[in-house]
């Protein structure tokens, strides 16, 4: 099946700087309704990658394809098949939401009557039905985010690229946005490429995740597979000499990384009981001061991938697995 996004040795220079340094990956399967998360610290190249997929930047080497079409050579076809929600405020301030969406729909190729109908329909869908005759400039931040989402989906694209869609939203609006994104992929069969700093959002919505750092992919994981492994994530704080603790963890089949002195993040496979941790800490003369379960597996993946966690010696071989866990 054609991948939603296929990138082959993509290099992009902006000025004299090489922002993307040979990215290669295949993400999602078109027509299935998959959500792909794009993560990375500031300056990792996420926005440049999105903009290259949109045809805003010309690759200096390599290629990028969306739904089997080259992003640069078949730019018009690609753009007809995608919807884009930018991170920053982007709208025509003195237009009503209906006119704004109608304009965007018509530019995307919808006939005038269909564009008007879809504008109303989409605004009701994102919760702006009652405010659809107000000018977009008068909207609150949350409403503007919803208006941006509406313009991205008015023409029913196959792939929707969302750049920080929950930025500035209060908890209720954020939840509403995530529900809409889930509906887009599950009920309407749209593929979603979600770029976000909020790991919880990505974990909640996405099926796959790609982590970028310094213009390179440092990790690519199938979150569905991650979830199905039923592994448990434990945060452990100990006092004492824990220098050899990583090796001990490895002996019992667990993996761990030390966040700082005495602070450990540990992945326990399903078959290992929590009691095993007590036994090995006792054996190593370590005193447990805190032990807590964590459910945020993506945070572990992300922090390890971008190097914010000190990798334990025995875990280094799993620094950048493809389609795997930590």
């Amino acid at each position, binding site marked *: 099946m054609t991948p939603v996004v296929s990138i082959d040795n993509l290099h992009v220079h902006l000025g004299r700087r090489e922002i993307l340094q040979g990215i290669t990956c295949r993400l999602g399967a078109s027509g299935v309704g998959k959500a792909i998360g794009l993560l990375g610290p500031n300056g990792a190249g996420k926005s440049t990658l999105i903009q290259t997929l949109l045809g*805003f930047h010309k690759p200096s080497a390599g290629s990028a394809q969306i739904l089997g079409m080259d992003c640069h050579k078949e730019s018009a076809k690609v753009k007809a098949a995608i919807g*884009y929600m930018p991170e920053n405020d982007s709208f025509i301030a003195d237009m009503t939401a209906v006119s704004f969406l109608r*304009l965007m729909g018509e530019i995307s*190729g919808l006939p005038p009557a269909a564009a008007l109908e879809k504008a109303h329909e989409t605004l009701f869908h994102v919760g702006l039905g009652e405010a659809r005759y107000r000018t977009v400039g008068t909207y609150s931040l949350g409403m503007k985010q919803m208006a941006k989402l509406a*313009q991205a989906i008015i023409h029913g694209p196959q792939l929707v690229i969302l750049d920080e869609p929950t930025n500035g939203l209060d908890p209720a609006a954020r939840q509403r946005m995530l529900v809409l994104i889930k509906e887009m992929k599950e009920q309407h069969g749209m593929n979603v490429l979600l770029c976000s700093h909020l790991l919880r959002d990505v974990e909640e919505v996405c099926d796959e995740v790609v982590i970028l750092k310094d213009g390179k992919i440092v990790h690519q994981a199938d979150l569905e597979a991650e979830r199905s492994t039923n592994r448990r994530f434990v945060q452990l704080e100990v006092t004492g000499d824990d220098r050899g603790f990583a090796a001990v963890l490895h002996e019992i089949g667990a993996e761990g990384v030390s966040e700082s002195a005495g602070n450990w993040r540990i992945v326990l496979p399903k078959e290992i009981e929590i009691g095993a941790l007590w036994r090995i800490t006792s054996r190593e003369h370590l005193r447990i001061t805190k032990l807590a379960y964590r459910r945020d597996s993506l945070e572990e993946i992300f922090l390890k991938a971008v190097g914010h966690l000190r990798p334990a010696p025995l875990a280094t071989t799993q620094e950048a697995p493809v389609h795997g866990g930590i």
Partner: protein
Amino acid sequence: MAVFRRGYERYNGPLTGTAARLLVMPRFAWERILSHRFVVVLLMASMFWPLACIAFIYVSNHADTLLGATGVSSGFSKMLEINGKFFNVFMSVQVVFGMILAAVAGPGLIAPDLANNGLPLYFARPLSRWTYVLSRMIVLLGLLSLVTLIPGLLVFGMQVSMAGTTWLSNHWSIGGAMVFGFLLWMVIVSLVAITSSAYVKWRVVAGALVLAFFFVTAGAATIVNQVLRVQWGSLFNPGYAIGFVWSATLGLEPPEDGPGVYQYVLSLSVTIVILGAILMRKLRPVEVVS
């Protein structure tokens, strides 16, 4: 079913063609511009001069009858002749309205898109930078046609209908020259208006810049001519260059010294290329800081 009950469904119907999409932005822009009372008043005011010219054409074509009744000499009827000079005066007056219209309507075309960061939304759709510029040009070309080309063709058509096919066979080139001259003027003025709109956020300033462009270039050309004691400085004056091309194509006597019509056409072509390049440099979906 009411739209709020229906829920969202992906659009799967037929899509419009490239030409139809090209006219989407002009349609929306015309709707917005023509909702301004000042623009409507300006459009109405711009019709008075063509009406006056049509009245003059009527008098010219019925001079014998009218002059015979009043007893004025036949030499006076020579002054009423409809020729290239008449159309040159008609065009020169009519473009003043066009210039004001361009200064009023032009700045609102691109500045709001830039101020609201709207370009990524356009360029993430099947719309290239060239198509975007062309769409914006069409907005102004359409509006300016209302005060230049269309009244011009009406005046010319009125003369043809009154003077007959003999006059047309002798003066058909005037019609062609008028269409070419107005188109050349509209392209340059539209480019100036759109470029100023792309670089200046405030509409009033951008509008003033449109007018200032022609005054400043005229001043610069005069300085060059005075300092160097030549006429070639006029090449830097697009307003004069357009006027010279009009005169040449309408069959009027050009000044003997200084650049010829081909040099002026070349200088206008260079102006168009420079304005286009400046405009395209600004119109990027994302700012790249190198």
